[in-house]
Every structure is written in structure tokens, then in C-alpha cells.
């Protein structure tokens, strides 16, 4: 196991140990994900038996205390584990450990259910998606005449000229689709003698959405 990877696992493990989980379950599964592929999976029963699927060697971290690990992790969730053989008759939480570059992210693929106190620890990190709309006037319900998008999740690299069709007809249309307005251009008086000069687009509105992502590329 690469030293860096091991260090990440230890870090995650230490974080988990400090959690006081409220509900019991039968086992815990930990999936280790790299930036491109699944690095491995580890499976623990709370009866003390260690059922490693041997897809990845965790080198004694969980083997030394599988029961404690399972209790501490498993009490939180209680998800069914869907493995290669189908759904196991166990209540099994699934924790994700993702490795991306030099950073690690821990979370769950079913983030809607974790207890609130665990949600922050296990949720995927949020990234900002920004939509910039240029409208025909200062009113949000007027037509879109220009648009730009910047995706902080890194999933899509938007660039100049990449779309001839506008994403929304009006600014209000974007709001109805869940975009939150975070900035609007101000209406400025026109300097004397310069009233007729045209320049930058005048009605600029910034919107955002927050999206879960493991992407950490700069």
C-alpha cells in the first residue's frame, strides 16, 4: 500500500473512532476509491469476524479492531449492501473513502440518510456552479442575451462559444430551475458627456448552485 494512501486511511479511521453512532447494524463496508477506479473494499461483521473481500489489503488497520470499527461505523447507517452476489441479508453501512490527488474525501453514496451529526463528515464536498446571465434590461424576467457557465465540480469545462442556444429564456427561468441569484449589476448614472457611449453588457446577473463533487483539481 502506498504510504500516502495508508496515511489517508489512518486519518479517516481516526475520525470515525470519535463518532458516537446511535443505531446498531450488522456489518460495515468500506470502499476505497481512487480518482479513476475502485482501489478496494473492506467488509466487517460486528461479531468480530472479518469478511474481507480481499480486493484491497487494508493492512491491519481494521483487522486489529474490526468489531469496534463496525460498531462505530455501522451504528450510523444500516444500509443494505449490494455486492456482486446481490443484496446481502445484512444491514450494512457503506462508507466511501475517495482519494484524489493529495487529498482524501470520506462520504457515503447515499448521503440523504446519515444522521445529521454524521452528515458533514460523510457527505461529499460541495462545489459551486456559477451561471452568469446577461439580460435585456435590469428586470429579471426579461430575455437572456448572453450567458456563461463555470462548473466548480470540474465535470464540465465550459468555454467561449460553446453554446449557441441560451440555457434559459429569462433570468426568472433560471431561478425556477433552482439557480440562486447572488449578484446583480448596479444601475449607475451616466457620466456627463459620456451618455451615449456603449461599452460592456449592462445587465449582468450571477447565479449559483451547489453540487456534490469529489473533484478537487485546481
Amino acid at each position: 500500500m502506498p504510504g500516502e494512501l495508508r496515511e489517508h486511511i489512518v486519518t479517516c479511521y481516526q475520525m470515525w473512532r470519535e463518532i458516537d453512532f446511535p443505531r446498531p447494524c450488522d456489518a460495515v463496508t468500506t470502499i476505497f476509491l481512487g480518482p479513476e477506479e475502485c482501489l478496494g473494499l473492506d467488509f466487517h461483521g460486528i461479531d468480530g469476524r472479518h469478511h474481507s473481500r480481499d480486493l484491497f489489503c487494508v493492512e491491519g488497520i481494521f483487522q486489529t479492531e474490526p468489531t469496534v470499527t463496525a460498531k462505530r461505523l455501522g451504528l450510523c447507517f444500516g444500509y443494505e449492501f449490494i455486492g456482486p452476489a446481490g443484496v446481502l441479508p445484512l444491514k450494512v453501512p457503506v462508507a466511501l473513502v475517495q482519494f484524489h490527488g493529495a487529498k482524501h474525501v470520506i462520504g457515503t453514496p447515499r448521503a440523504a440518510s446519515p444522521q445529521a451529526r454524521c452528515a458533514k463528515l460523510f457527505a461529499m464536498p460541495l462545489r459551486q456552479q456559477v451561471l452568469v446571465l446577461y439580460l435585456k434590461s435590469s428586470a429579471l424576467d426579461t430575455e437572456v442575451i448572453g450567458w456563461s457557465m463555470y462548473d466548480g465540480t470540474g465535470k464540465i469545462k465550459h468555454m467561449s462559444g460553446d453554446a449557441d442556444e441560451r440555457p434559459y429564456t429569462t433570468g426568472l427561468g433560471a431561478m425556477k430551475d433552482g439557480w440562486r441569484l447572488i449578484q446583480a449589476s448596479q444601475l449607475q448614472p451616466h457620466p456627463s458627456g459620456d451618455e451615449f457611449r456603449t461599452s460592456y453588457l449592462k445587465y449582468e446577473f450571477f447565479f449559483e448552485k451547489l453540487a456534490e463533487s469529489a473533484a478537487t483539481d485546481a
Partner: protein
Amino acid sequence: MPESKLLTTGQMAQFAARGFLRFDAIVPESLNQAFLDDIGHTDETAEQSIAEHYGRIMSSSSIPVVPAGTPLDSTYPSDTPLGRILALPEVAGAVQSLVGNDCLFDHHFLHMAFPPHLLGKRPLAQHTHQDSTIDPRRAFDLQIMYYPQEVTADMGGTRFIPGTHLRVVSEAAISRYQNMLGQQHVVCEPGTMLFLHHGVWHGGGANNSDRLRYMFKIRLCPTAPQVRLWDTSDLNDAQPQRAIYWLDEEPEPDAVHTVLTTPEPWHENDTGRLDYLNRIRFWRYLTGDEAFDADYWVTRVENEQA
């Protein structure tokens, strides 16, 4: 002096309103091929690297190294591909009509958009920009863009936004504008040329094809007022004002008044009207007629009684 085919009043009005004129396949294929041969273009599959390609062009091309401010007449030898292209009657006529026969050479550049296999990474589009720097003149420079090959949609031809030329902005400050309603992408036959006002917002597209894309740009500067340099035989100086709202019939689409007051898709409600005013004032400059107006836009705001 080469034979020239001057622009018409209708073409000049279009240029005044939208900032560009496009001539498709104006350069014959033999000249396009001569230009490509001259710059050392080879089959893309034979290219080794971007540096190698640039090196070949620098060492073998007849594209001259010319100081800024050189008269255009002295810039391109008449027996070179570029000299022959600029001597084509339509090209010479457009140059004469827009910046005059005594115009000066500013600079030229062979833009190359490399495909992914030569670039070694995903190509990115150039940000939208206005060339040079803040330029509040009423006079204008001419930018000629020449496309020697066919440009397909996936080759990422030049993107430009008609009607932006009179907007005074600071070069790359408009990079944030990724897309605008009415933007155009140059997809064209070989030998197509664009004649652009220097202020038109534009940017190179991402070349996602397997071919190199070339665009040769020449910037020219006037040395005298750009007044009535085109074929003005069809210019009607006495064009009367027309009724503004209560029209009995559709406006004549090619009339100067109509062309100068036709909105662009990206126009804002209020500043689109300011663009009309600026077009009208630009037309005053081009015609030397300081009383010209269309739909009373400028007269109205100049009506200051002593």
C-alpha cells in the same frame, strides 16, 4: 494600382451597422493552394510537433517581416501569394473603400488552431476579446481575416459578434462573455475573407477536428478621413426622414435608414438604441454629412435651442 471593385452603399451601410463584410470563396483555389504551399503546410498526419510546424513556416514562408507603418503598396511583393490575393479586384476594392488607397500596414499574423492530436490536450476556445486596446476613435482600422482552407464546424472557426464594433471596451475585459445571442462562427469554403472593423468582438474557436486550421489576419490603418471612399453612385443624400411608427408599408430592408436601425439579437433594450445613435454618427463620419439621421434618433437629442 490594381483594378478594384469598390463597395456599394448598401455594403457600406451593412459594415457601419454590423462591423463586418463577408466574402465567401473570393480567393480562387489556385491562390489558396499557393498560399498553403508557401507557408509550408503539409498533411496533418505528417506533422511532428507544433514547434516544428512554426519553425518550417518561419524558415520557408514568403510572408514578409514588415515594420508597422509601411504603406500597404510596399508590403507584399506582387509575385507572392499574398500580393496576388490583395490585388484581386474585390479585395483591393474593399480595402480602398474602407481605409483608402494610401492605407498603412499595421501588422499581420498567421493564426493556427491545432487539433487535439498535435496539441496533446483538449483544445480550448480563445476568450472573446476586442483587438489592441481601448480605442474611442470614430476613424477605424480594417482587419482582414483570410481562410485559405475549408473551415468545418468542428474546426472552430473564428467566432464573432456582429454589431459590437462601436462598443468601447478594454480588450480582454470581455473574456467573461462566453456566449452571446447572434454570435457567428466562421464555417466557410476555401478562400473566404472577412473584412472587420477593428472593434468587433471575436475569438478563435476550439479545433476539435483532425486538421490544422489557418487564419491569416492583416490590420490596415487609414491615413486620411474615411469619407466616401466607396462607389457612392447609389448614395441618396436626400433620403427624407420617414414616419417612425405609423408606417403604411414595411420599411425598405436595404435602405440605409433601415440597416442602421436594425437591432442585433444581443441588444439590450435601452443600449441597443444607443447603438443606433452611434451607428448614425458613424455614418455621418463615413459620408461627411453631419446632418444625416435615421428615425430622428440623433436629431432628437441634439435639439438644443439657443
